[in-house]
Structure formats: C-alpha cells, structure tokens
C-alpha cells in the first residue's frame, strides 16, 4: 500500500498538484491558498503516526443505542403554550401545535453533493405543555440507513416540518441520503415552514445579519453557554469516529438541541408578529 501511496504522491507533486487530501480548486487569485512545500511530507508523517496507533473505539457520549450504530438522546422540557397557533405563512386557520416537527441536522460539511451526509438529526415536538427533544446520531457509518428510517418514522402524515434554511439545505440533503440508502420517505409530501425567509423579511437591516444565532440572541433573548459553533460539528464527529475524543460530539448534541428548541420559540415569536407589518 505504501509503495502506491509514495508513487502517487510523487507523481502528483511532479504534475503540480497539491497534497492527496483536498486539492483546492483554482478559481481566481483569491482561491489560491499557498501550498506548503512540505504538505506532502506532513501527509506522509501523519500517515505513519496514524498507522502506529490502531483506532480505539470510544464510548458514545450520550443516549441509548436504538439500532446498530445509532444512538437516541431524549429530553423533555416544560413548555406551557397555547395548543393552537396562527401561522399565516402556512394556512389561514389556526394550526395544532402538536403537528409541528422542528428539526435540524448536523452534517459532515457544507460542500454539497451526495457525498455530504447528516450524522445527527434533532427534532422537537410539543405535547400537552411539554416539549420533547429527540436526537439521533451515528456512531458508525453503517448506521445511516437505520437512522434515516427512524427519523422518517417520526413523520406522521399530519406532521408539519419547521426549520431554519431547511428547504434549501437540510431537506434536500436528507432526501439525497434517503435515496442513496433506498429508504422510501415522506419528506417531500409534508408541508414545510422554513423560517429563514419570513425572518429575513422581518429583520433585514434590523440586526447585523439573519443567522439563527443572531435572531435567537437579539429577538428571543436566548443566551447560550459554551456553545460549539456549528462549523466545528464535522470535525467533532470525525474526532469521535476516529477514536480521538468524544468531548466535542457531546457539545454538538447540546448545540443541536438548543437549535430545535429555538425553532419552537421562534415559531411563537413569529406567530405573535403580524406578517403583513414591515
């Protein structure tokens, strides 16, 4: 194996390409990150280190194993609220709050395409003044199909999806992975309320941007403690998968849980606003 590796690394260097890992596309001067001449050496060094230590298997940071390689974390919070709410973005009549499935995924990256997958799906659902947050996450790649099936099973025919940018990001990504794993699903049929656009219409120019974290802090007055930025989620899961550390994966669970709780809060906040107002 290492003979081929060395040969490929040498040929790539001769042809002017970067390290084996992630050659950056060349799109104008801004994309031209300098390529360290010793990137290959670093790569080869890393390989030796990795080979020296066989991958340990870490304990899952939380939850119970509900299928091979899939863990479920469930938490319930008190959430006193009117069982119906007006969401004119969806319908003119009041909507049963219990139908709302606030969901959010954590993925292996933002590159797009079928190679990007969700390793965690969180959902919040309300019932009788209680908000139940259920989160599924993978401890092995092979658990993906089971996780997707479990998530799909939560989606009864009356469910209404609620997300932040989920129409353009989470839902298409999940649809691709469902298709790839041959799982029939209900995702495309269900109504989907994506708060990104209503929030933008309401708050553009009011706050510095319309990211969920900003809206949460400024409009909902929620303050997070020791939050792991979403951008670090892929690395956190990889670190766990490679047996390096499970600490940040636990923080991803916290982050994702807060996201879906925020979605329910945001729904109440927006319902209290007249959508026709500027």
């Amino acid at each position, binding site marked *: 194996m290492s003979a081929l590796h060395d040969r490929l690394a040498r040929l790539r260097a001769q042809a002017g*390409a970067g390290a084996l890992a992630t050659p950056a596309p060349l799109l104008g001067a801004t994309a031209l990150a300098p390529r360290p001449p010793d990137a290959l050496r670093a790569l080869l060094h890393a390989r030796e280190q990795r080979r020296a230590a066989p991958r340990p298997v870490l304990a899952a940071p939380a939850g119970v194993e509900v299928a091979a390689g899939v863990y479920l974390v469930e938490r319930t919070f008190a959430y006193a609220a009117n069982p119906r709410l007006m969401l004119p973005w969806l319908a003119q009549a009041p909507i049963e709050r219990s139908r709302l499935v606030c969901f959010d995924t954590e993925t292996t990256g*933002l590159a797009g395409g079928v190679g990007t997958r969700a390793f965690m799906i969180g959902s919040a659902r309300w019932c009788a003044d209680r908000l139940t947050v259920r989160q599924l996450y993978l401890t092995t790649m092979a658990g993906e199909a089971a996780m997707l099936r479990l998530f799909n099973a939560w989606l009864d025919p009356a469910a209404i999806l609620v997300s932040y940018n989920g129409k353009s990001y989470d839902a298409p990504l999940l649809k691709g992975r469902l298709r790839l794993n041959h799982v029939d699903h209900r995702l495309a049929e269900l109504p989907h309320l994506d708060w990104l656009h209503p929030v933008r219409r309401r708050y553009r120019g009011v706050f510095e941007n319309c990211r969920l974290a900003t809206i949460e802090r400024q409009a909902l007055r929620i303050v997070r403690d020791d939050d792991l930025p979403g951008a670090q989620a892929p690395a956190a899961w990889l670190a766990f998968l490679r047996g390096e550390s499970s600490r940040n994966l636990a923080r991803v669970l916290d982050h994702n849980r807060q996201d879906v709780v925020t979605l329910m809060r945001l729904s109440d906040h927006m319902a209290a606003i007249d959508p026709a107002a500027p």
Partner: protein
Amino acid sequence: MSSVDATPTDRAAAPVTRLVARWLDKYGERISGHLQRPAQPARWREFPPDLAPALGTALAARGIERLYSHQREAWDHVTAGEHVVVVTPTASGKTLCYNLPVLAAVHAQRAKALYLFPTKALAQDQVAELLELNTAGALGLRACTFDGDTPADARQAIRLKGDIVVSNPDMLHQAILPHHTKWAQFFESLRYIVIDEVHSYRGVFGSHVANVVRRLKRVCAFYGVQPVFILCSATIGNPREHAEALVGETVHAITDSGAPCGERHVLLWNPPVINPDLGIRASARSQSMRLARQTIRAGLKTIVFAQSRLMVEVLTKYLKDVFDHDPRERERIRAYRGGYLPNERRQTERALRAGALDGVVSTSALELGVDIGALDVAILNGFPGSIAASWQRLGRAGRRQRPALGVLVASSAPLDQYVVRHPEFFAAATPEQARIAPDQLLILLDHIRCAAFELPFTSGDRFGEAPVDEFLGVLAEAGVLHQEGTRWDWIADSYPAGAVNLRAVADGNFVVVDRSEGRQTIIAEVDYASAALTLYEGAIYLVQSRPWQVEHLDWAGRKAFVTTTHADYYTDAIDYTKLKVLARFDGSRSGQGLCHHGEVHVVRRVSGYKKIRYYSHENIGYGPVNLPDQELHTTALWWQLEQDVLEAAFERRQDALDGFLGAAYALHTVARVRAMADGHDLQKAVGSGDAAWFASRDAQGRGQWRNAQGEAVAVGSAASFSPTLFLYDNFAGGIGLSEPLFHGAAGLVRAALDLVESCDCNGGCPACIGPILASDTPQPSQAELAVAVLSLLAA
C-alpha cells in the same frame, strides 16, 4: 431490401473539374498530391418494420422516406441491445443512427436518453434538430440542453421531466454525477447514452472521459439500469478499439456508409520555395488567399480553415477587401470562431445553410458537426495537426451529391512539410489511432476519489479493470475516506469533482497577475509544465503580442506577478533535459541497435534565458534563472547504438551526435503524426541513458555535449559513448503514447529515414532534421549524418 440510385449529374461539376485541371496544368510543381474519389451512389434500406407510425410520419415530414444502409444497420444492432460506434463521413446522416432508436424508445416506453457532445454549440444544434422531428411527428418528447448556461430554476424541471438531456462530459463530471440522487428518476429510466465526436476524446481529455464513463456506469448500476451506448466518430484508424476503451464494453463498429457522395478532389499544395538554402517557402497564407479568390470567383461556396483566431480575422479581412468592399452589396464573406457571441454564430450558420454567403473563414469551431449545409470547396490554411482533423475539415465540402474540392496548403512547419510530401497518408484509409490511458495513475486516483463521493466502495470492488483497494487505502490515509469493515465512505468536507479538470493530469496551473499601477488583475493562466519555461523572473510574457515582464514568481503559490513593459526584446528560456532509464518493460532489436520501452526519470532544468531583439533577432543578453528542477517519472521508448557500431560508422563522435539529434527531430515529427499527439505531449531527448550526459543543439545547430551538471564538455572526453534517443510522454505517470509507438517502432524508423532522404533541402532544414545555419555546410551534412543513424537503426 436495398436498392441503388443512379448518380445524378450535376451542373456544378464543371467549375470544380475545370479549376482542378487548370491548377494542375499551371501549378503542377506546387501540387504534391492529387487524390480523387469517384462519386458513390446511395445504398438504401427500408424503415424497420417495427418503427412506430408516428415516427414514420415525423421522418416523412422531414423528407426522409427510407434509410441509408448504415442507419438501418445501427437500428438493428442498437435495438438488439448492442453497443455501437458509427464511423461514417461528414453529412452521411449519422445523427439519425442514434436519434431513431432513441426517439422510438422515448415514444414507446418513456425511456430516457443522455447525449454528450464535446461543445455547447453542438449540443444546442442537436436539440434544435430533435425538436424539429418532435414537432413534425407530434411526438411530445422533451429534449433539453443541460450545461453551464442552464438557469438554476430550469434545472429542476430538466432533471424531472427531460426525456433527452443533452450535455457535455464536464457537466456530467462536475454537476450531474455528484448530485445523482437529484437525477434519480432520470437514471432509473435511462436507456441510451449517446456520445458523439468520440475521436475528440483522446489523450488526457479522453482518459478522463473514460473514467467519467466508469463513474456513470457505476451510478447507472446503482439505479438498476444498463444503458446501451451509441457512439459516433470521425474517421480514425481504430474506432472500435477506441470506443471499447472509452466505455469499457464490447462495441460493434459500423463503418460502411450508405450515404451518397459526389466526386471529390483533394490537392496537397506546397507553396513554392523562395530560399532554397534556408528551406524557406512562400507563406501558406498568401497561397490560401490566392486559391480562395479563384474558387469564390468561379462561383464555388468556399470555407477556409485557419489555425488560430487571429489568423481567422486576418484572412477574413483579406477576402473582404476583395469581395465586400462595396457596402451597398450583400455581404459575401464572414468569419466564424470561438469567442463570438452565440447569436452571431447562429446567424452565420443560418446564412451558410441558406447559401447566402460565398465564403467563410473559420477555426476548428466549424470542424465538428455544426450544420452549415453544402459547400463546394474547403481550403486548409496549414495542417491541422492530425490526418483525422484534416479529413473532418475537408469533409465540410461536398455535402450531398455535388463534386467537391479540398486543398491542404502546407506551411513551412515540419509537420506540414512531412504530411504534404506523403500524399499516401491521405490516400490510405486512416493511419491515426486515437489513444487513451484510462488507468493513468493520477487520473485514476482523481476519479476513484470522485466515485467514492458519489457512492461508497466495498473492498474487492473494481473501477474499470483496476481493483480499488490500494487506492482506497491511500485515500483513507489522506483522510478523505473512512473505512468501516469492508465499506469505504466519503468523509471529507469537500466536493472532489470541483478540483479535477478533465483537460489536465493534475490541476496545478499558475496565474499571471498584472500589478502595474497598483492593479491586481489576472491576465493569463499557464499550465504547470510550461511555467518554468515562460514565467521565470525577468521573462517577457506576451498576451496578444502585448509585453509584460515577470517581476516575481511565487512558485509555491502558483503565481507570477508581472508589470507592463516596453521592452524591444523577447526572452527565450535555455533549458536542459536529462533522462535516466528506471525500468525496461520490453525491448527488441532495431537494425544494428536496440529499441526499448520502459519507465524513465526526466529532469529538466531552466538555467537561464536569452534576450532576443525583435526583427533583427540578435541576442542582446542573458539572464540567470533560479528555479527548482522539474522532475517527471514517465514512460518512454528509446533507441541505442553500441559504441563499436558507432565507431565503425562515424569518423568522429561529433558526427554521431549530430546524427542522433537530427534523427531525434525526424523521429519526433513522424511519431507525432502516428500518435495523433500535440508536440507538447510527446517530447524528444538525446542523452546517455543514465543521465551522465546529454546533448542539445548550440546556437549554430550543432550538437553539444553536456555533463550531468549542465556544463558544456568536449565531445570526446567521456570514456564510454552510447548515445540514446528518447521519445517520452510529457506527463507525470505517462499518458499511453509511447507504448504503441514502441510496437510500431520499426515503421517509425523507416518513415523518419524516408522523411530525411526525400527532403529537397541542402543538408537539413526545419522540415526534416531541424533548423541549421545556412552558412554551415559541413561534410558530411547534418542530414546525411541523420540518415546514417537512422539507417543503422532500420531493420
């Protein structure tokens, strides 16, 4: 049932025949070859009995009542589930070979088809044609182009509703396959994959495309379909073999055209010699213009092919000065090339189809199958680099049954001169073989990476023929794949297709940044292999003949910073190449010497540069260059003669060395023609084979010996003397050119010998053994020395 039509006599026959007779009479010494093909009648077959009536109606509405024999042959094989490659001349109705079975399947079973064309213009043409058939037969099918210009909101509709999606390999690679789940419905019903112009998929590009097809087949298998491939090609020497290499399946070749063709004359035209000492001839441009003026005046619709966009503009101006000087008259001459807006190009195509123009000047943009109707004369201003491309361009004249004339006007470039002096290449069916190397290591690795993104791999899987496990291991070590048991999943946060350019072995291009007056503008992009030769600090870099000077080269950052300059000189790199044989794969006797094929290590060093004044071309100074050596592990073939053989044949070592350099030049020329390779892709070198010394030509064109450090040394100083002549693939890892050349090595030596022996020059010229100084007339001459080396190597 087949029938034969009588050839209709055509009144247009007279001018072409008259003109050819007059030229032969008047310019006989310039015409090195006159090839004639008699007219051929059409061979017809009936529509297949199972053709749906709606399709018959659609065809009848387009004036088609029966099929040419090859169209019916294609139908029979394709509908039997065989993969097919159709190789018939321009305007022989190739498109119906695939449109008919595709339309039938779409019409009857709502099957889907994917069409791939090398360019966007061809794709749009194809859709226009499909839509005409669709309207004519009220077939209700949806054909759409899917390319970089397709708006985002239209893409969703195309994915879900398109019956025939017309795209190109780059889109398939970058946009369709990495998002295949969005195309799930399309793939589930995909029945036919049409790949047209497959002769253009050769070398690096073809090797990439073969791997894109492997990925496509992998995705198809995931959706449970095994589509039939229908390929089309211009005439090349190995259509079936090439098609099979491209799609990795057994392919049936249809090479016998049933389409009629008129009488055809092809003239090989060599401009007259105006300086016999230097071997300088009148320019191809002046000759082409003279010929075009005569054909247009004789009422013949004429197309002139030029090699560059700039030359298109120049030639168009010359013709317009003659034919379009009166603005009140209708426009008779137009130019056509890449870089024009699509609308303008469509307008010219329509004018050509309608017969409203008398002359058009074009680049290769009109070489491919854009429909421009019937023309009478094709004039090639210079050899286009391959026989296949020449025929493709010559075929633009003589669509339908009119007599046609093609003229290849040679420039003084060696390849042109070689071709124009060997009319048998044009007479012989098709000598060129399209070659690809889909298992080139770097290209393979790139596509296994892309394939792993699209669908996970399992240990033991194959990609094409190659087992993937080792590659997966490499990618896992690099952190882009994650292994779990026997399964390998993509794990990185990147989009690998975005980093793989189908037209390069590895994407390491340099950008040239203009920072005059505080600007930061990119003015050019230079491929990695050329960077050391053109972007060293001090170099004058030219864009559209405007000079910039390189001030700083950031090698690691792949950037050259330049500022505008008014220098009255240009620069030319001084570089040395030394080769070392690493492994011999195969070998054979070659006359009194040996010929081998194997792996070599190439080191190229740019040691400095010359400043050369414009017009006078005098050398006005030198500059040093300090760049890392360029290294290359690649494949090569090489010839060697033992010391005792050389000592018996040559009085002095200098003579033998000059002979080797001349022989290398001639062999390189003929090998490029055989391998259908660009000069840049196949390189030549002369050295000792162990990198101890190597040879180059000095300013006088004489051989100079250099030691491993690149210092010039006396030619007799080394103890051992066994010069080695290399031809090598100029790509890290090789690109499959040198192996077939090795298997035809004896023929190469004979052809090179013939090239030098039959050259009319006095003792050597750029057309045979390379440029030498006119004043340099040693005895024996350099050409004679090259002949001596080649004779020793000839069996």
